[in-house]
């Protein structure tokens, strides 16, 4: 296969390889480590394929790259090719998120290596389906395809929580599912309404139609609200976070790590701010307020949690608040910071979940009070944990700092000083609960549990996961420009729409399976 062919089908491959892995796992018998090994292999292959994207991504080229646009389901009675298109492609916003999803797949498999003991076949095949659904959300440029992957991403997660929940999995799974499924009903109605008005599900065409004002403003406002509501629940944004803590404390490590936040945040950026620039400008003050409240609220609740899964749940709520702030600041730097933050949060949280999983599988409890002085027995775990925590609280040189700095400085300069100061102050609280957590678990006098239970430090496969993540945290912190370069030059979001409007028609949609990127490569 020549490079050109690969460029044209790479996204399809990234979507199909995990699915093929899932089917293979489902067919083969559930014996020993067979399912896990196939899952690992599939995940590594997928990750390898995602690395093709940054390697051949043309920075600065407008529009979507690696684009595929083929008719899928024709909804017009006379065969006029209107309806659902298999339309995928990436730009700077989604590039690193796809790579991150690819990276977290082998991490997730290795984190489950010893943790999942029964019905491994079901677990790993669902995990692979989850992979496809996540990548699908990031690459879809057709609203129905996007919606399909968006809904599909719920299913494996919910089933796995129900099957492998720590205490009451079924309850947590139901809550998770209902919380995220019900808001997607208005989302679907809004998509159908937009389709009725414009006869297209194509993202770029819709962007154009929305911007040119063929749809009544009131209807657009309601549509944008329906979109935002679905996304805000999924993130979650402050008052809608009812499902988060329970899901985090019930879900197996691998799943909690891959789904956290990214889907909703990305969707906000692409499909809310990107599709409804005017309406999101109107809603931005509300979102900024909610984001800052979320940061404060998350930090305060994280301080008082007794269970470390719940602590991390509220900590992430705070971090998603920072990202939301960046998105609804509606300026370029804030947006870059938000995307960078999503990616670096993915890496940090990946490592953090693995580490907490390590502790939980060894000591079989997630109560912080039971721990204490563990560092003496688990020195390597402690080292990695400290690095990760420092990245999480935003220590300069590590990756957490860059995104937060961009978001906060842009909020300060171009949105509102008050909110920026409020957000910055509360981020200090973040440092408190994280460092206090480190102190309570790893240092201080040895607790009875730590003294009585003799456990092993990190095993090889765990180091194999954590070391690259730690290196990545450092590299992303020291050389953020490499990542930001691609994000910055990305196409089509809110602030840029005005300038881009003239450029949009040139690369609209009804072109069948042509990709400017691949032609440029030739």
């Amino acid at each position, binding site marked *: 296969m020549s490079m050109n062919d690969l460029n044209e089908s790479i996204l399809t491959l990234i979507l199909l390889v995990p699915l093929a892995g899932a089917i293979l796992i489902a067919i083969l018998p559930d014996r020993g480590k067979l399912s896990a090994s196939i899952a690992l292999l599939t995940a590594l292959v997928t990750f390898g394929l995602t690395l093709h994207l940054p390697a051949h991504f043309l920075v600065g080229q407008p529009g979507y790259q690696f684009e595929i646009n083929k008719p899928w389901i024709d909804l017009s009675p006379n065969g006029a090719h209107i309806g659902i298109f298999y339309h995928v492609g990436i730009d700077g916003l989604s590039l690193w998120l796809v790579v991150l999803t690819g990276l977290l797949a082998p991490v997730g498999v290795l984190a489950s290596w010893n943790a999942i003991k029964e019905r491994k076949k*079901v677990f790993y095949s669902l995990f692979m389906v989850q992979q496809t659904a996540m990548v699908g959300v990031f690459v879809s440029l057709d609203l129905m395809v996007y919606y*399909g992957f968006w809904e599909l991403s719920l299913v494996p997660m919910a089933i796995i929580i129900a099957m492998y929940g720590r205490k009451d999995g079924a309850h947590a799974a139901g809550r998770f599912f209902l919380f995220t499924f019900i808001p997607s009903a208005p989302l679907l*109605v809004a998509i159908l309404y937009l389709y009725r008005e414009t006869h297209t599900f194509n993202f770029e065409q819709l962007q154009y139609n929305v911007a040119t004002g063929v749809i009544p403003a009131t209807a657009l406002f309601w549509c944008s609200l329906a979109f935002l509501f679905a996304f805000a629940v999924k993130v979650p944004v402050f008052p809608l976070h009812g499902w988060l803590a329970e899901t985090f404390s019930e879900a197996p490590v691998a799943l909690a790590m891959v789904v956290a936040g990214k889907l909703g945040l990305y969707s906000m950026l692409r499909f809310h701010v990107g599709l409804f620039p005017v309406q999101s400008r109107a809603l931005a003050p509300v979102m900024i307020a909610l984001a800052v409240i979320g940061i404060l609220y998350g930090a305060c609740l994280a301080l008082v949690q007794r269970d470390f899964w719940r602590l991390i749940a509220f900590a992430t709520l705070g971090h998603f608040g920072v990202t939301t702030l960046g998105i609804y600041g509606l300026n370029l730097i804030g947006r870059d910071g938000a995307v960078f933050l999503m990616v670096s949060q993915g890496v940090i949280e990946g490592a953090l979940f693995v580490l907490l999983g390590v502790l939980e599988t060894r000591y079989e409890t997630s109560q912080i009070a039971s721990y204490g002085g563990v560092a003496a027995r688990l020195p390597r775990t402690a080292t990695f944990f400290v690095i990760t925590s420092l990245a999480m609280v935003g220590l300069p040189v590590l990756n957490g700092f860059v995104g937060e700095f961009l978001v906060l400085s842009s909020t300060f300069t171009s949105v509102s000083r008050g909110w920026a100061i409020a957000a910055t102050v509360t981020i200090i609280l973040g440092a408190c609960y994280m460092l206090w957590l480190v102190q309570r678990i790893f240092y201080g006098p040895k607790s009875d549990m730590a003294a009585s239970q003799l456990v092993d430090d990190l095993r090889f496969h765990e180091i194999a996961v954590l070391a690259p993540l730690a290196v990545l945290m450092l590299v992303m912190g020291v050389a953020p420009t490499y990542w930001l370069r691609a994000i910055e030059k990305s196409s089509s979001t809110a602030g840029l729409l005005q300038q881009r409007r003239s450029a949009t*028609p040139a690369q609209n949609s009804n072109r069948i399976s042509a990709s400017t990127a691949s032609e440029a490569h030739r």
Partner: protein
Amino acid sequence: MNASDSLRILPEIILTVTGVLVMLIDASLPTGWSRRNLGVVAAIGTGFAYASSIWQLGLPTGTGFFRTVETSPFTVFFHVLICAIVLVAILISMDTLPENGHHQGEYYALLAFGAVGMCLLTSAVELLVVFIALEISSISTYILAGYRKHTGQGPEAAIKYFLLGSFATGFLLYGIALIFGATGTTQIYEVAARVPDNPNHTMLVAALALMMVGMLFKVSAAPFHVWTPDVYEGAPSPVVALLSTAPKAAVFALLLRVAYEMLPTLRSVWGPLLWGVAALSMTVGNLAALRQENVKRMLAYSSIAHAGYLLAAFAGFGPSGIAAASFYMAAYAAMNVGIFTVVTLASGYDDRLPLIRDYRGLIYRSPLLGSLLIFFLISLVGIPFTGGFFGKFYSFSAAVDGGAVTLAIIGLLNSGVASAYYLRLAFAAAQRPDESNVRTAFALPQVGIAVGAALLFTVGATLWLGIVPGRALRAAETAAHTLRVPPSAPATPEISLQPHP
């Protein structure tokens, strides 16, 4: 009448012959011999009926037997659907029906005769033939519903179904009589021609209302749904697989004919009526299902809700509404027959696992059955890439197109509520088994060839309708265009379909 008329009812003839053949073979087999192979005969016969339905596509669209029956892509669509459902029902029964003392001969014969009625119902264009077809199908299903006569609920189910069902048929007949009174004919096209300038508007509205009652009862739409949970609970699961889909498909086909073809001018009457019934069915069905502990009762209420989703398509204009309703019926049939197949396998002919909590740990006890149960439930919830989603999508987009945005919102919120009870069962199946439950202390049966084929077929159909529904959509649209719908004025948006300049 000539020979080519017979070709117009070829599937019905084949099914009748099959039924008679099954009964004859049953009578001539010595007692004590296995009668399982009667199922094979019935399955082959139904297979031929299925093939002959597809073959009928080659016939020119038209009527036969003095304009009483019609062959068109519309009738073929529903014939194929009904034959497929009956075929799967036969396959399930072959592996699960107990061998002795269960009158297997009559069972398969009744399935075949029921199919005759349902098929005839979709192709009839004369209201009296409609009535006869409905009776053929109903009487067979009344008997089948009470097949577990050794249990308490079996006869109860049959009697309830029979009494309420005949009452509803009475309504339909009264409606037909009023139609005849108002227009002087019972041929659907002639009625349609005579309705617009008919002075007897009140009588026509009354006729429409009465006919609607009869038909809505058969599709178990609220408020005519009360029989459904009791009947589903008492009837054997393979029969419920059939009962919850095939007769409904046939009656929905009739409803489409009556609404769009016979009385399109009364749209101002049946439009709001069906809007209300759709909203009510979804809401009542889903809210009641939330409180059920019994799996079959829960699925009964879910089928009431699905009747509501389907009726939402009637808010769509002309062909788009008809196509959406037809497609939804196919998608619903695939997943509902599928889930009853799994229920039949997991809990047996005798319903050994009646309650939702008895399904706990199914995926641990049998990964295959557990996964399939969850799969069909996911499709019933309406998750993309399954038939259930695309059916809902298509039905509600027809509704939104027809201007019923409120109905679409009610419907989609309802499907959110519905996910709660579907997932209760799905998550029960996903949880670790409850060792203290004595009811689950039996080994699940191996999946046999016949029932395996049924599972493969339903899973395949559900995925096919969800991932590549293109061909089925074309078939539904072709079917929709053969109904003689007078041109109405669908709101064509002013936006050009071309990409912007």
